[in-house]
């Protein structure tokens, strides 16, 4: 039956992450953006919340919590509300752990999951995006060709988070001569896998992302996620997109709430600017778009939880919330005027981060 109510457990998780995002993540956001580094203690603290380890099975050292895309969406929204780059870094281990959990063979479960069920943060990375304007995850140029008992990977990837510190990188590539798509667990030290300089982006400056080159990178055939039958790639993609969409909601809400608070304080002509319709209506529209985006995200997530196809819904949610985040962040800068343009306030950071959602792919997964 239709319901818009979170379960008690979901509310608890959301509130916990929200408190962490507000008290710990947001205060660290500006310094992280300026320096390009996230304090290790902050990542350690977020790791202790169990947002990655929680859903891993007890047999592998996890807590065996139920895995839900809706719950994931809540976590991503809240943490991204604190800061997008920090959220992506903190949750990057999911990029390997969760696909392995869902699609992996028994051997892959045994080999990989325990590496993420540790007391210390373990980096994870996924390589999907390719450095070209019309990159399409359903028509990748990176290829994986079966050659005897191994796959040979060739191509170039970018926007690979934490590539330099991840033991294994999940590389997505076209298979069967372009007819299919798969994901491959590639150890970082594999010959033929080259990690480039750390990328320099408009936003996400605190998140270490890299170009990754694959030149005749040969891996064992058992390294294909899901074994010979591979993965449900459109589902994997939908899981990524729902996570990204949820993060876009978080960024939008961060910008909206900051602008709202500012508009109540800032006076012009002797009154708070929020009492002027020009500002008040802009805030009202921002509020609508934040809620609208979130509902689209929840709908797509709820389909994933029911095991239904969510390619279209996740795509819709991703595109809609990406556009909404950009518009809301832009309006937030506009609300603050000149003060929004200087780096003293976070809204310019929200705007730079929001713009990225048009390019991001594979930076998060529910």
């Amino acid at each position, binding site marked *: 039956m239709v*319901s818009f109510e979170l379960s008690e457990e979901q509310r608890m998780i959301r509130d916990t992450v929200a408190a962490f995002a507000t008290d710990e993540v947001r205060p660290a956001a500006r310094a992280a953006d300026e320096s390009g580094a996230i304090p290790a203690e902050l990542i350690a603290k977020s790791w202790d919340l169990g947002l990655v380890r929680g859903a891993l099975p007890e047999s592998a050292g996890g807590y065996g919590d139920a895995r839900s895309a809706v719950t994931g969406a809540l976590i991503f929204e809240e943490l991204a509300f604190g800061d997008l780059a920090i959220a992506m870094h903190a949750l990057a281990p999911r990029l390997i752990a969760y696909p392995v959990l869902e699609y992996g063979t028994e051997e892959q479960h045994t080999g990989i999951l325990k590496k993420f069920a540790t007391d210390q943060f373990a980096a994870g990375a996924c390589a999907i995006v390719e450095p070209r304007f019309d990159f399409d995850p359903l028509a990748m140029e990176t290829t994986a060709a079966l050659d005897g008992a191994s796959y040979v990977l060739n191509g170039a990837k970018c926007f690979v988070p934490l590539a330099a510190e991840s033991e294994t990188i999940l590389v997505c590539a076209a298979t069967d001569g372009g007819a299919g798509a798969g994901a491959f667990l590639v150890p970082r030290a594999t010959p033929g896998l080259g990690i480039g300089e750390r990328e320099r982006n408009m936003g996400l400056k605190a998140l270490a992302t890299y170009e990754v080159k694959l030149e005749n990178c040969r891996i064992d055939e058992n390294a294909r996620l899901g074994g010979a039958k591979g993965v449900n790639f459109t589902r994997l993609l939908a899981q990524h997109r729902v996570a990204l969409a949820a993060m876009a909601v978080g960024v939008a809400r961060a910008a909206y709430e900051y602008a709202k608070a500012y508009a109540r304080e800032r006076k012009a002509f002797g009154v708070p600017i929020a009492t002027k319709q020009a500002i008040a209506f802009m805030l009202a529209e921002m509020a609508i778009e934040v809620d609208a985006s979130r509902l689209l995200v929840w709908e797509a997530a709820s389909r994933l939880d029911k095991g239904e196809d969510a390619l279209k819904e996740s795509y819709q949610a991703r595109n809609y919330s990406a556009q909404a985040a950009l518009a809301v962040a832009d309006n937030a800068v506009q609300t603050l005027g000149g003060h929004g343009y200087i780096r003293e306030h976070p809204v310019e950071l929200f705007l730079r981060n929001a713009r990225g959602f048009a390019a991001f792919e594979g930076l998060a997964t529910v």
Partner: protein
Amino acid sequence: MIDFEFEPQVINQTRMYHTVAERMMRPISREYDEREHEHPWDFWRAMWTASRNLGPAADSGKTEQAGDGAPKLRNLYTCLSTEELCWGDAGLYLSIPNPGLGGAAVSAAGTPEQKARFLKRFAEGEPKWGAMAITEPGCGSDSAAVTTTATRDGDHWAINGTKIFCTAGQMSAEKSEGFVVVWATVDRSAGRAGIKPFVVEHNTPGMTVARVENKLGIRASDTAMIVFDNCRVPADHLLGSAEVKPTGGFKDVMATFDATRPIVAAMAIGVGRAALDFVRDYLAEQKVPVRYGVSPRRLTAVERDFMEMEAHLKAARLLTWRAAWMLDMGMRNNLEASMAKAKAGRAVTLITQKAVELLGPVGYSRKVLLEKWMRDAKINDIFEGTQQINLMIIARRILDYSSKELN
């Protein structure tokens, strides 16, 4: 738990409404758009009879408990049926004989005895309508500024003033055994608190339909100007209490809007979906693909436009369902109802305009209904609180401002 799936019996019921829309509304849609002020009696009679079986098409109310104790999502389900019927034709939908907004006002403000007395008629006899008269030539969105007066005269009230934009006003006041709920002030010095609702029975002397408007769209629905000239109604036709106090009275009409705004949003969504379905079918016929999942940079302009329209319609629908669901759950939904209404009204206005643009000469031609839906859609950006009034309500709520602080 978050869930967007309806039970099979709800889906079946929705299909039934869709069949009504497809078989009974679409075939006469163009006819009653072109022949404004003509009356589709066959359709009305059929709907009047059918409402015995289907339940009233446009209704609002409080939470009802089903047998198993689970709340019955009556407002939410009404959104579904409304979307289907407005997918058929929004003007015809608004013209369906039912208690309408007048009935909603009786439900919101009347005593149990008054509800029974005034609403009983909708379960029997010939088709009847109920209307609400609040807007005046000199006040629309500022509905608290009504100048129509009600003066006590023995055991009657004498009503004087002019009301405009009464949906189904003519059918309620003159052409059926219905009624009009008119909002009038019993004490102008008391402001909002002095504004009270009165039930004026059809053909009461002193009540005249002075004009039926010619409109851009929703032409099958009559929009009346009603003049009250010393119109005397019995004292017990004042809904609720005659006492002038700061709470109650006018506040009840606002409460009515919390219930009706999601339904009006659902109306908008029905019209928007009609346009979107038409464009989808047309593109498919022309072998123009709409590819979901591929890089946005590889899409054609038509694909992008279409996907954007579809996403905005869905966003509006989810906001609408949430607002209705909250009402069903007994939650205050004032903010969410306005969000749904503001989003749906705007989205559907833009969607239908874009739909006409996408199909070029085909869309602009009156051979197909697309241009009509664009004209019909626009009303959703205006009635039941304009876009701007809803933004105002939202802004006050999110900023925690009173109407004095933000106006």
